[in-house]
């Protein structure tokens, strides 16, 4: 069978080229198949070259390619190899999902940095678009942070948010209300004209929180009220 593959290599690769548009990976695969077939290292060697195929081509094309080889080469274990392909593909998919999950976690953390910028003052700059999942984990993170640091004021800066619709507006209101239940004040800064316009048109108002034009004036206000509170203490 090995000899047969060698003799028909060019024809085979031509056929495989028709299916997948490329032949280099197929050649590698056929060579390593011949080298390792019947040897102890077969399973392992095949895994590596099949991983290359899976990375390069669609699974359906690989299946068609293997069928074609099976038609041309008598005794070629097309079914067996396909089973291995599926195993390899499963494994690759799992790895990809893991990476996506990790990236999502990283993104969620990056997108909601919280900084203790002054005694009793925390700044949370929001960046990027918010969907309901992200908004929820952001709210959880911010509230934990506020409770841990015992901040008296949270400044939420929305300069980096391109769009606030009714849903996101609703989430922000919920988050602000939750922060206030902890005994902490909320100051929102950086609302752009276009966002102010949309918010009012949508009927979302932030009347339960203090609004300041930018981070600087928000911070100045936050410091002034925390210092005043400090003097008023028992």
């Amino acid at each position, binding site marked *: 069978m090995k000899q047969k593959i060698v003799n028909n290599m060019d024809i085979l690769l031509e056929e495989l080229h028709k299916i997948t548009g490329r032949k280099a990976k197929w050649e590698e695969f056929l060579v390593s198949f011949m080298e390792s077939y019947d040897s102890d290292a077969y399973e392992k060697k095949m895994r590596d070259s099949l991983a290359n195929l899976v990375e390069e081509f669609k699974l359906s094309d690989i299946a068609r390619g293997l069928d074609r080889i099976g038609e041309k080469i008598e005794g070629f274990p097309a079914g067996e190899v396909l089973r291995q392909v599926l195993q390899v593909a499963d494994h690759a998919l799992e790895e990809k999902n893991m990476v996506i999950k990790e990236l999502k976690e990283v993104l969620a953390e990056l997108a909601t940095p919280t900084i203790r910028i002054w005694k009793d003052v925390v700044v949370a700059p929001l960046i990027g678009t918010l969907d309901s999942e992200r908004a929820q984990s952001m709210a*959880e993170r911010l509230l934990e942070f506020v*409770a841990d640091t*015992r901040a008296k004021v949270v400044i939420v800066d929305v300069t980096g948010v391109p769009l606030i619709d009714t849903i996101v507006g609703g989430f922000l209101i919920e988050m602000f209300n939750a922060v206030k*239940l902890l*005994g902490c004040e909320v100051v929102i800064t950086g609302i752009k004209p276009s966002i102010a316009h949309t918010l009012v048109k949508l009927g979302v108002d932030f009347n339960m929180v203090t609004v300041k034009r930018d981070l600087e004036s928000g911070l100045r206000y936050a410091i002034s009220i925390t210092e005043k509170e400090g003097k*008023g203490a028992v």
Partner: protein
Amino acid sequence: MKDRVVTTIKLYNYLIVPVQIELDDSTVEAMQRQILSEIEEKAIEGVIIDVSLIDILDSYISYSLSETAIMAKMMGCDTVICGMQPHVALTLAQMGVNMRGIIFAQDLEDALSKLVKAREHS
């Protein structure tokens, strides 16, 4: 005093109520009665309810607390809730619960300073 369901501590003119039991509906009602009668008996000017040990506050319990605060206000007394856990706050906010008449504080210290401030204004 009969119907005492929670321990209370009187400090100056303030009444500190650390809630250390799981609140069911009748307990929360009994607690309301207890707080109101202690306000009258001990000439209390401010009530601090510490909920840091509570891990579920549903709409009825939070409504009762809010009701207690409004009743206390009618007797000339301010109410502060302190120490709410972040996940409880998130849940109440998401349900859309509106706890009127209550001042919120982080801890006992913050609660006392907010009460003092509220008394100054009134």
